[in-house]
């Protein structure tokens, strides 16, 4: 547990962080989010004393940090920053081993640990002897995460860890990090300016406003359903009604229609036979959906070029947001739902979704309770 008790930081008399009280629970990921200049990074850096608080106390598992030796304190806390901050003169494996070596682990064990961690963060062992400049931004960021983990710290601080990479890589890194955190269960404080990232990754989200004040601390779902005030509501965003569906799982008992399908190479007659309202779903041999085909436009056997790829797929273990999006994006108006292994489970018509979403809307009434 990391706890802020009445922590204030003044720069030339102006507060960057004002009287912050916050608990980051053990084994959970707490996200500090807010507009630039809200003091979120300053708050993060006060934990490992890269910034010294003007007043107040920060404790690690009840132990005040201001009484610890500063180097020892920092070695107990993994730290990940925006541009990874790798050592340019050390190979990938050496970079990762750095924190283990600082923690007093011998060279051989540290190296073994670093190779294990590279695998854990999804990097091939062939990269171990490369230098940082030979890696892509996303790969560097993974090395940064592995380096923070190599001393097996109980606590981690992450300062905009995924902001410097492109959106696709960012999504991958986020997903993988979530999976990793489920295994390792570190006590983490992460800073981001991106509310979507905060809602996606945080077990708990602390929204800060300009002037270094805490506006609200809540679970992502609560933040969407019951924002504490206008500032939080604005910051969380206008489409919060839609987004909170992202926290509602798809009901296992969801009634799906069975969808007749054809495979690539099917003749126009076969396609027309299987089609409903002019659209037929095309699957591969393993019964995984490939895309919809408009039979009116078919001039011969179904080819890949005939596939309409606009629709998203909703996995059964996904969220109601994915289900609604699958239906909205489907040219046939029927949302495709897959099993966890990617095979077709069935479809649901957009019109039938209203009845399924209605009970969820009632939770919105909690706002007024």
């Amino acid at each position, binding site marked *: 547990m990391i706890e802020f008790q009445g922590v204030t930081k003044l720069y030339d008399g102006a507060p960057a962080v004002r009287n912050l009280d916050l608990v980051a629970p053990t084994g959970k990921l707490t996200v500090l989010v807010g507009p630039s200049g809200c003091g979120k990074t300053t708050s993060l850096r006060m934990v*490992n004393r*890269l910034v010294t608080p003007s007043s107040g106390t920060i404790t690690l598992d009840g132990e005040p940090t201001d009484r610890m030796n*500063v*180097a*020892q*304190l*920092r*070695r107990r806390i993994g*730290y990940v*920053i*925006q*541009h*990874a*901050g*790798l*050592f*340019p*003169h*050390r*190979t990938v494996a050496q970079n990762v081993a*750095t*924190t283990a070596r*600082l923690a007093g682990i011998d060279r051989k064990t540290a190296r073994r640990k670093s190779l294990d961690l590279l695998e854990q963060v999804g990097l091939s062992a062939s990269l171990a002897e490369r*230098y940082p*400049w030979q890696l892509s931004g996303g790969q560097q960021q993974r090395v940064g995460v592995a*380096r923070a983990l190599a001393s097996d710290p109980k606590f981690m*601080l992450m300062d905009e860890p995924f902001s410097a990479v492109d959106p696709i890589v960012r999504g991958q890194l986020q997903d993988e990090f979530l999976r990793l955190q489920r295994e390792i269960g570190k006590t983490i404080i992460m800073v981001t300016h991106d509310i979507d990232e905060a809602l996606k990754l945080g077990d708990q989200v602390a929204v800060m406003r300009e002037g270094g004040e805490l506006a609200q601390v809540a679970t992502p779902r609560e933040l969407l359903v019951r924002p504490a005030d206008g500032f939080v509501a604005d910051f969380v965003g206008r489409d919060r009604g839609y987004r909170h569906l992202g926290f509602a799982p798809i009901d296992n008992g969801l009634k799906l229609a069975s969808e007749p399908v054809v495979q690539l190479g099917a003749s126009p007659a076969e396609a027309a036979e299987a089609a409903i309202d002019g659209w037929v779903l095309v699957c591969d041999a393993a019964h995984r959906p490939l895309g919809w085909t408009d039979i009116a436009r078919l001039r011969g056997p179904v080819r890949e070029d005939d596939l309409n790829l606009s629709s998203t797929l909703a996995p059964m273990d996904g969220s109601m947001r994915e289900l609604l999006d699958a239906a909205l994006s489907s040219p046939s108006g029927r949302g495709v739902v897959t099993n966890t292994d990617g095979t077709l489970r069935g479809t649901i018509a957009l019109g039938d979704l209203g009845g399924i979403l209605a009970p969820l809307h009632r939770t919105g009434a909690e706002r007024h309770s």
Partner: protein
Amino acid sequence: MNFDWLWRESDMIFDLFVRHLWLSAVPVAIGLALALPLGWLVHRSGVWRGPLLNLVGLLFTIPSLALFVLLPWFLGTQILDPINVVVALTIYVLALLVRTVSDGLGSVPRETLQAANAMGYRPLSRLLTVELPLAIPVIAGGLRVALVSNISIVSVAALVGTRQLGSLFTQGLQLQFLTPIIAGIVLSVALAAALDALVLFLSRKLTPWERRPA
């Protein structure tokens, strides 16, 4: 060119060559050893960095002959003592390398330093294992300039009687004889090229992480 003369005097020329090597290399070694802590101090001196570097740079403008003549008076040495030359050249090396070391330490990326601090590096081990290695390419660049300029300046010491390749120039002038002058120039250039290549080679060996065209 009188090759008979070269052949006859080869022992003497070789002796001058070795002295030239020592007189120019030893000050670089001493200067580097002094410039590392001084450059670090200047690097850490905040607003004083600029003025301090200008001050140190001014040392380079003292005429070498003046130094060779004045130093015995300061050091209490004999005018013929090679210590004078070593001290004078060390001063020039310092004038170049203090700035180089300070620049080299300043070239270390901010995120790298921040990451090192956040991981719990103590200041001395951060300096020795992170900052200095990363400053090597810049420091090596300064070292090459210092070596080559020393090899050229040291020959002036022949005027105050310290023997090295420069003595071939004074000898040639006195005897109105071109051969020793040409031999002195060729050997000086060869020495400079060899030492320059050596530093370049060592610096590359020490910095395998540097990106360079294959």
